[in-house]
């Protein structure tokens, strides 16, 4: 089980939001996920993990670098080839479940199989049933539409749907992000079980508890990927003395304005003397802090 399911080579993604405004969402990210892996990518919001997920899911293209899925270079594939590719190679699980609202639970799972045209209606129904049993979906709810299912049940349907066409890997974007604790636990257990049956799973999350369950944790910060948590991140605060001085001055000016405001209010009898005293004291304390 050492052949790669997903390989990203020096992938960069730059969004151009307007004239002269560029956002570098990914910077030279290289990543390899082997078949059978259970990988989590964790990082704060804005770190680029959603962008990486979209690129790994062929929903978006990198600005530079190459993406290989199951040994196939998908970087340059046409939109219609990508659609076919996605259908057979990638399963998606989203934070907000994203089931098709006017299809029942079992029909949602059948849809990818019918779209692939590889299954007959009967086969698709039977396989959907097996998948839903596998993820622990209650059998008396098979005909319910998503709006009549709990969050946990919807996410189980979503996982079953992701597995429908035997994908190379499943991409899960915050799969427990919208669930209560017990539903989250069930979903995590389900994912772990499916991985133990040989399914490759990539999870993107900022939930460290979920990440701990996986075999491999990758950390994302500011568009870069790390094998270990970059601890120096918070300590490293670049601000030199002169900038600090300028900020101090601004703070003092602002406090001066506050003091004038309070005095005017008091003079015009708009606030009581106690309130005036209290406010004055707080301003003085702040001034002291700046001057220290």
């Amino acid at each position, binding site marked *: 089980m050492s052949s790669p399911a997903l390989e990203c080579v020096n992938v960069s993604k730059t969004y151009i939001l307007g004239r002269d405004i560029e956002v570098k969402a990914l910077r030279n990210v290289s990543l390899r996920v082997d078949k059978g892996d259970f990988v989590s990518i964790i990082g704060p919001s804005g770190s680029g993990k959603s962008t990486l997920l979209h690129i790994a899911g062929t*929903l978006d293209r990198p600005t530079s670098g190459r993406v290989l899925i199951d040994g196939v270079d998908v970087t340059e594939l046409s939109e219609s080839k990508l659609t076919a590719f996605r259908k057979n190679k990638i399963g998606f699980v989203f934070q907000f479940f994203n089931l098709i609202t*006017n299809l029942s639970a079992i029909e949602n799972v059948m849809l990818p199989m*019918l*779209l692939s045209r590889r299954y007959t209606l009967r086969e698709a129904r039977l396989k959907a049933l097996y998948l839903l049993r596998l993820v622990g979906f209650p059998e008396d709810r098979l005909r319910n539409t998503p709006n009549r299912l709990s969050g946990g049940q919807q996410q189980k349907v979503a996982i079953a749907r992701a597995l429908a066409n035997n994908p190379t890997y499943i991409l899960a974007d915050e799969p427990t992000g919208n669930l209560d604790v017990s539903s989250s636990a069930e979903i995590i257990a389900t994912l772990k079980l499916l991985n133990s049956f040989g399914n490759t799973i990539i999870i993107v999350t900022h939930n460290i508890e979920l990440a701990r369950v996986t075999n491999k944790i990758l950390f994302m910060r500011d568009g870069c990927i790390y094998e270990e948590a970059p601890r120096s991140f918070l300590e490293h605060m670049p601000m030199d003395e002169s900038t600090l001085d300028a900020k101090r001055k601004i703070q003092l000016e602002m406090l001066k304005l506050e003091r004038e405001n309070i005095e005017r209010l008091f003079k015009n009898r708009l606030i009581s003397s106690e309130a005036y005293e209290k406010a004055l004291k707080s301003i003085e304390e702040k001034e002291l802090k700046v001057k220290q």
Partner: protein
Amino acid sequence: MITLLYLIRYAMRDLWGKKVRTGLTALGIAIGIASLVSLFIVSLGLRARVGESINTLLGSSIIVRMRNSEPISIYVVHLLSNIPGVKKAVPVIIGSGLVESNNAFILAVPIDEIQSFQTIINGSSISSPRALECLMPKESATRMGISIGSTVRVVTQYAQEGVSFKVVGLSEVGGLLQAALAGPASVVAVSIEQGEKLLNKRGVADMILIRVNDPSNVSRVVNAIKLTYPNLAVSTEEDVLNQAQSILNTIDAVIFTISAISIVVAGVGTMNSVTMSIREKIREIGVLKSIGTSPAQILFIFLTEGVILGLLGGFLGSVFGIGLGYVVIKQVLPRMFRFEINLPFILSPEPFINGLVIAIAASFLSSLLPSLNASRIRPVEALRYE
């Protein structure tokens, strides 16, 4: 195949999920189609009626006039009746005057021919060529308070003091001469002898109606007349029918242009509905695409929605329209004008099919643009959409 059925089912459930909007959009289409279909039915009736009238009057007859619209000498009548194949040549005098101070159209023909011009529904025909007797349309007689046996005063340019005629029979209205020539004025039929005096047309006729022995001889007779008398203008039932058709075509064009506007309005309604439906589903379109639905399949889903709306509206509209056409023909038209218009109500599959096809085509076209846009939505953007 199963995939297509699945996508159609998806579209139907989507429409079913928002019944009010679906219903209102279909209603919008239905109104447009109903107006179109009902007008189509009235137009069908009108055509049938005109054809029928011309056929009753002319059948396989031929109308002969002078090319310069001058009266024709009565002598020509005798000459024409000698042409081989001609059974009979009937002189006709037409003119205008006043009957009891109302505008009237005067029709004078030999009394043995009078019934082929006017269908008598009450009373009898004119008894003798010299009798001061006349026939009047029932409707105008009723309006003027005239009944069989009453005396009416007919005034013309040449009989300014007026001549009194006894009304002996009431005729049906709505004949060709009534509708096409006289308009809302009534047609008073008298004997040709009296007509000559009233309209000062002694020894002449305005036109000559020629009856042939054998309907298949019409063209041969027409050619013979044209050859022998180049000054005469000859028209057959076919010519008159063609003339009438071209008038009817103009009326149709106006009518259908007006109802085309309502179809356009319905189309815009459908476009709005499909656009809204897509707006609400952007995220879902993203999901569909991410699980491998192709742009063509997305296009198919929303076009199907549009076509179902068209089918629904077209069916409703066609049924409404046929009902409306029935009401207009049977209830509105006979009462709307001073003279009665009786059109036949013809129930054929044609208006129904036309209505349905136009509705489907209109809704297909108007949902094409929003559906194309939907199929082009990029999944990443759609998934980000709240």
